[in-house]
């Protein structure tokens, strides 16, 4: 098997995540799609790290994971805050900034 297959899988998962961000209106599901995209890039990093025979790619994936954890904490608390004021988790309802 060609190790590039992992990269193809990662590209597919990234595409599905990006489509999910465009398609879904529930803020939590949009967030999960972003997580899927981050996971896909991690897979590509690990696959390339193996293809090139260095561990640097895994370090990059490690940093992606740290940033993803921080992003989830802040993003979910923003979602909870919006839910408290508007009683809805739909991204369509958070449109007050446009006035």
């Amino acid at each position, binding site marked *: 098997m060609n190790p590039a297959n992992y990269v193809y899988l990662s590209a597919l998962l990234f*595409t599905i995540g990006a489509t999910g961000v*465009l398609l879904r209106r529930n803020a*939590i599901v949009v967030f999960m799609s972003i997580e899927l995209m981050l996971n896909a890039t991690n897979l590509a990093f690990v696959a390339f790290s193996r293809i090139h025979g260095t561990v640097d790619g895994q370090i990059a994936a490690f940093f992606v994971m740290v940033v993803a954890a921080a992003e*989830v*904490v802040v993003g979910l608390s923003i979602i909870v805050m919006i839910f408290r004021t508007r009683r809805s988790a739909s991204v369509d309802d958070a449109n007050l900034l446009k006035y």
Partner: protein
Amino acid sequence: MSQLAAQAVTLAAETRTSTGEAVAFWLLAPLAVVASLGMIMAKRAVHSALLLAFVMLDLAICYLMQSAPFFGVVQIVVYTGAIMMLFLFVLMIVGVDSSDSLIETIRGQRWAAILAGLGFGLLLVLGIGHASISGMAGLGGANASGRGSGGNVQQIAELLFTRYVFAFEATSALLITAALAAMVLAHRERTEPKAGQRTLSEARFQPGGYPTPLPPPGVFARHNAVDTPALLPDGTPSELSVSPELAARGDIRPVGAGTLPPGRRPAEEAESETEPVA
């Protein structure tokens, strides 16, 4: 000498994937794609969360197969353990059955999004195909060449604390900022003073208050289930003893329900404890 030869053999074997790995990949990859498609199409957010956890476990096995044991384990611990649990917590706060509104606010957004996704995926796959990645160096050598005893974890630690030490320090600042941000965002200012014992007691004796505790359900009734109202001394059911939620749903058991005629009771003695006091 034989050790060196064995190492050379493992290095040579590492440059191409084994049959077992190929089998596992062709099992896991379609599952991951199907599960992630299900994730973006599931109507309920909880199903999306579970499918995403499945994809993450799937990817963890992919990392383990790709001689990245540290990363495979961290994927399970951090992603499926911590991040997905955080997602589930927030889902529980927001409400499990909050499903998407199906009204399109922008006309034709769904088809445009699907088209854009397909185009993007095609572009990515064609780009990767054009790059013609073939063969690999394998991580057997890199994992073994660490200082210390050698191994994936030692190798990562060595790189993390030498070449990437500034990036590593920056992540600490990032994590502290994120923790502070979460605390600031989740903080709610109290707008009225907290009700003390005196205030609560006085409110209970105001008109409309109820000074004593409410009667629990099932007192003097045939059953002590929550849907059975307590019986007052004159035998009428007490509305206060059952939850108004149950009353609104019409789930309250009527007083005479389930009572068989005296001659047909199967276990008169066993039920005598729950009989109303005459």
